[in-house]
């Protein structure tokens, strides 16, 4: 017997280019209060807490330890942390709820990219002996992928520009870039500024609950029908950058192909990556992709994936969707991918 587990609340901060007047905890606290207020729960009512963040963004070791102060970890709480995007923290919390050891979980994640040079920082994710010493940055690696797609005839520059324009033309008060944003100059050919995500600081939080508890806390819970994640080889030389087999496999395991979805929130920081993901996820033209604007409108590192799940769930909460797909990614050129399928009760 398995348990039904749902996202019952979602909250996020504004995503801003800099938040130098705030610490991570100060950025996070309003979000934690917001998400708990939506359910009426207090910290003491939460059975399990899990967070996602990265020391390298904060520029210091054990950066997540202080974030617990924002949660209010007294009396002591059952708590864990992944050094990953919050989408994977949600996955850990989901497994915890599946075991029956917890009925409710608080999941949060945050990242401040503003204190450093994000493009340089992300090079430190690469193979430390053979690749990282060359400092190939995240935009350059994504440009390799974009060029491979163009060479394969899968897209062209005007099509990429259209993805950027569509992503920013959204009514999302939390987004960092919105409205008529110019496509701009080349950053690394063939990618222009409009093909690249804004660099921003932000935080997000989600509450999960199992079974009847979910119905108590939310009028229309977003049930997690399936969730799975897969990783690929690290070296770009052994991957077909025009495809994402890990996304396809995760989607299959999450049951994404069993029935069509109406909405998809894709974590595609670069316009070209949406092309790859649409193909791997077999999304038809009538699927509404990234109504929130996606990562091209706001891409707070370590939170952007969790925000995709939160945005998809919030649409179900509001009755704007019955079946939605959410995707999160990590690593260069979509190396690691998570897919969740969310559904509301039939109406």
């Amino acid at each position, binding site marked *: 017997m398995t348990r039904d587990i749902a996202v019952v609340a979602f909250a996020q901060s504004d995503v801003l280019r800099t938040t130098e007047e705030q610490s991570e905890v100060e950025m996070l606290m309003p979000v934690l209060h917001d998400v708990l207020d939506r359910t009426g729960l207090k910290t003491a009512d939460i059975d399990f807490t899990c967070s996602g963040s990265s020391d390298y963004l904060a520029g210091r070791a*054990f950066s997540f330890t202080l974030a617990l102060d924002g949660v209010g970890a007294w009396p002591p709480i059952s708590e864990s942390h992944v050094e990953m995007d919050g989408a994977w923290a949600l996955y850990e919390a989901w497994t915890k709820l*599946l075991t029956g050891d917890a009925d409710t979980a608080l999941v949060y994640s945050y990242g401040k990219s503003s204190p450093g040079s994000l493009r340089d920082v992300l090079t430190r994710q690469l193979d430390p002996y053979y690749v990282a010493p060359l400092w190939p940055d995240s935009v350059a690696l994504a440009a390799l992928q974009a060029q491979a797609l163009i060479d394969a005839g899968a897209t062209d520059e005007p099509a990429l520009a259209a993805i950027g324009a569509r992503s920013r033309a959204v009514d999302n008060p939390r987004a960092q870039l919105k409205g008529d944003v110019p496509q701009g100059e080349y950053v690394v050919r063939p990618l222009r500024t409009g093909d690249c995500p804004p660099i921003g600081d932000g935080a997000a939080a989600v509450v999960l609950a199992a079974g009847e508890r979910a119905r108590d806390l939310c009028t229309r819970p977003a049930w997690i029908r399936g969730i799975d994640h897969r990783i690929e080889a690290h070296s770009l030389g052994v991957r077909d950058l025009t495809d994402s087999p890990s996304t396809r496999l995760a989607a299959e395991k999450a049951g994404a192909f069993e029935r069509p979805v109406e909405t998809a929130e894709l974590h595609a920081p670069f316009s070209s990556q949406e092309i790859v993901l649409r193909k791997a996820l077999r999304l038809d033209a009538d699927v509404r992709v990234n109504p929130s604007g996606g990562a091209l409108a706001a891409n707070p590192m370590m939170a952007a994936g969790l925000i995709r799940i939160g945005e998809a769930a919030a649409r179900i909460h509001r009755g704007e969707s019955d079946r939605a797909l959410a995707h999160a990614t990590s690593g260069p050129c979509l190396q690691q991918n998570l897919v969740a399928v969310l559904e509301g009760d039939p109406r």
Partner: protein
Amino acid sequence: MSKEPVAVIGIGQTKHVAARRDVSIAGLVREAARRALDDAELDWADIDAVVIGKAPDFFEGVMMPELYLADALGAVGKPMLRVHTAGSVGGSTALVAAGLVAARVHGTVLTLAFEKQSESNAMWGLSLPIPFQQPLLAGAGGFFAPHVRAYMRRSGAPDTVGSLVAYKDRRNALKNPYAHLHEHDITLEKVQASPMLWDPIRYSETCPSSDGACAMVLSDRAGAARAPRPPAWMLGGAMRSEPTLFAGKDAVSPQAGKDCAADVYRQAGIADPRRDIDAVEMYVPFSWYEPMWLENLGFADEGEGWKLTEAGVTELDGDLPVNMSGGVLSTNPIGASGMIRFAEAALQVRGQAGEHQVEGARRALGHAYGGGSQFFSMWLVGSEPPDA
């Protein structure tokens, strides 16, 4: 709803040393993983998911190294999770992996924790400046020494207890081929004569900096039935956290540690830990933490832990052996240290601990903590499956 029982069917470690200059980080983790697979007589294809942990990324200077390590750990095409809960991470990583099996999400999971401290400098990795916050006072010893002092004052323990622990653990390490420090000429006098680093903590009462990795293969009931060697069964596991700095905290015996142990004992049906548990692998990076944790974990009343140590109860041939492997005091690849505690507890109940085996060990506790005594993770493993 019922959980799937979780069995440890394979364990592998590297020989821990100050610097493994002969292997990359990938080579180091693969060595431990391969040994765990060999112990379980499985191959990479038998593994459904990989859960990896380590302490801060700054220790090696690689951001989210699981991305780069996916190939080395046979994780390509599989789910891979990366846990980080400070010094308790090795334990938490094993618990997250166990959760995947218990939830019946996966049948067989490889879990691994590592630290290759020689790639960088751990003390400076911990000492990056944080505005408006007290620095760690030149490494962890500076942070923990005042709490040891508080314990001594509170319990009235004589100042000889710390050196007894160090002398015991370093002798135990001589029986463990994987331990980092093999001090064949160790004497109690040498420990007591070693330089004072952070009063009252002496040089020989502190952990070394190690390169090393530890891996375990966890599986469900079906996997345990196929395993070639006796499995260790997880009877209970828990994590607890509390803030590092706040006025109400008892830094000598943190509430989170007590709550974590109580949760594990409840799950495992342990009424009296002193009587019901046969051996303990405890996270003791500074020798005085043995008596402190003996109390925190419920093996002794408050203020009485040092008496167990002084009476030899925690010796390898004592009534409640603690750190049979030599413990963190003899081997400290930080991110792996918690998992080594968990794995050594499992080795004991499998009867596979070799020269440092506690005869007839049926139930053993693995314990880890991290941050400023902020994070705790523990598991209790047994030679018999739960409900048997």
